[in-house]
């Protein structure tokens, strides 16, 4: 497990967290390279299905991050996203899908150092949790194998 390099996907909004991550770069603050960023105009744009797609394609952890409440470039996208995540988290918990593998955060364009912290703490946590075996198994389990089953 020691050489386990978690795959973490970050879904971030263009105006705050993406810009914040840019600032982390311009400030030359180092963080774990396991995280790869996908840019969205707004957290309001992030479909909950994309999070499942990330797990289905082998992600061990996910970060979802956008503007702090009241700072949304589009005024309200992050508020809508917040409600969506509240419901999503409740459903995932109820189905036993591991929500410790998802970090939801607000990181502003000025919080370059904080972005590094969010990434590093997420990667550390996912490292401890290990690969997301149960979701990977779920994805690879094909009904046909049941028929073959040898």
């Amino acid at each position, binding site marked *: 497990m020691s050489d386990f390099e978690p795959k973490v996907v970050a879904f971030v909004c263009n105006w705050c967290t993406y810009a914040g991550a840019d600032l982390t770069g311009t400030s030359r603050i180092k963080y774990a390279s396991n995280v790869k960023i996908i840019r969205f105009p707004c957290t309001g744009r992030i479909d909950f299905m994309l999070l499942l797609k990330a797990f289905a*394609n082998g992600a061990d952890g996910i970060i979802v991050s956008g503007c702090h409440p009241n700072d949304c470039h589009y005024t309200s996208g992050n508020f809508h996203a917040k409600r969506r995540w509240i419901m999503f988290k409740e459903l995932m918990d109820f189905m036993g899908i591991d929500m410790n593998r998802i970090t939801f955060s607000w990181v502003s364009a000025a919080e370059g150092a904080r972005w590094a912290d969010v990434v590093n703490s997420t990667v550390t946590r996912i490292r401890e949790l290990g690969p997301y075996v149960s979701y990977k198994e779920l994805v690879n389990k*094909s*009904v*046909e194998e049941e*028929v*073959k*089953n*040898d």
Partner: protein
Amino acid sequence: METTRKLIRKQSLEKLYAHLSGSRKIYAPVTAANKQVDYKYNPPYAEVASDHIRSTLSVKNIVFPKVENLFLFTNNRTESTITDIELFKIPEVVLWGAHPCDTAAFDVLRSIFCWDTKDEFFSQRVEKLTVIGFACHKSDDYCFCTSTGLSPDSSKGSDILLSRLQNGDYVADIITEKGNAILDSCPGLFEAAPDEKPVITEVKVKFSHEQVTAKLANAFEHPFWIENSLRCIGCGACAYVCPTCACFDIQDETKGKNGKRYRSWDSCGFGLFTLHTSGHNPRQVQSQRWRQRIMHKFSYMPDRNESLGCVGCGRCSSGCPVDMNISEQLEALQNI
């Protein structure tokens, strides 16, 4: 081959099960906690159900799985490579405990899958399959095998058909060479058959399928379809539990450069089943889809495949969330 009748005692039946499971996989019905009966691979004999009327799903899954990979592929920079499914790896399976309606359905499926080009996947699975059917000693209002030309003790599709005697022993009709091979592999478990008649349930004849087929030839525009399908909600339950429904959807699923093409069950009851790319949908409303379902089984198939598309198992009716009772509708249809 000529059918031979043997006796197999209750205790020997368990031994036969153990004997068969030693060499191959057994697909047998099991009663779940919620009283539903589902087929499972290699269940312990003690769990195998023998008193049920019908399982929730038919046994078609064994020859026509709900999802089946057709091939795997890899998209490289300049060319794509295709990897075939190794059909020879499909294991030998014994289907245990299927009722005559379900076993008869294999012939119907064959008439669909192999009417012109032989479907390799289906054929291979059928070839690897040995069927030990159980004649029905119980039935209910949904059953109508006798209206589709079958009977509760029909041996159609079985390699060995077991029928229960009053005392719980069974008579075994050895129908095919495959059945004979089983008999030969464990002759000690079989005895000479008594003269006694097995317990067979009585299934009332509800309609004449010939008459239904005749009526359907001119019933395409009949108001019957709208009136009788208003409550149909357009789910695929009837098609998916049906032992003879064979429609499938083909999909490609890729991850990165690797992918697979597979087929999975589909249903003509779905609104988008017939949607064209142009946006046109020849079956726009549910009555047209309901008509298609009945027409296909009772008119088109007798015409084209010379086989009725229904075996009268009654699952479509018992599984329907809105009680679309097919035998009731067919009864009505023969009188329109």
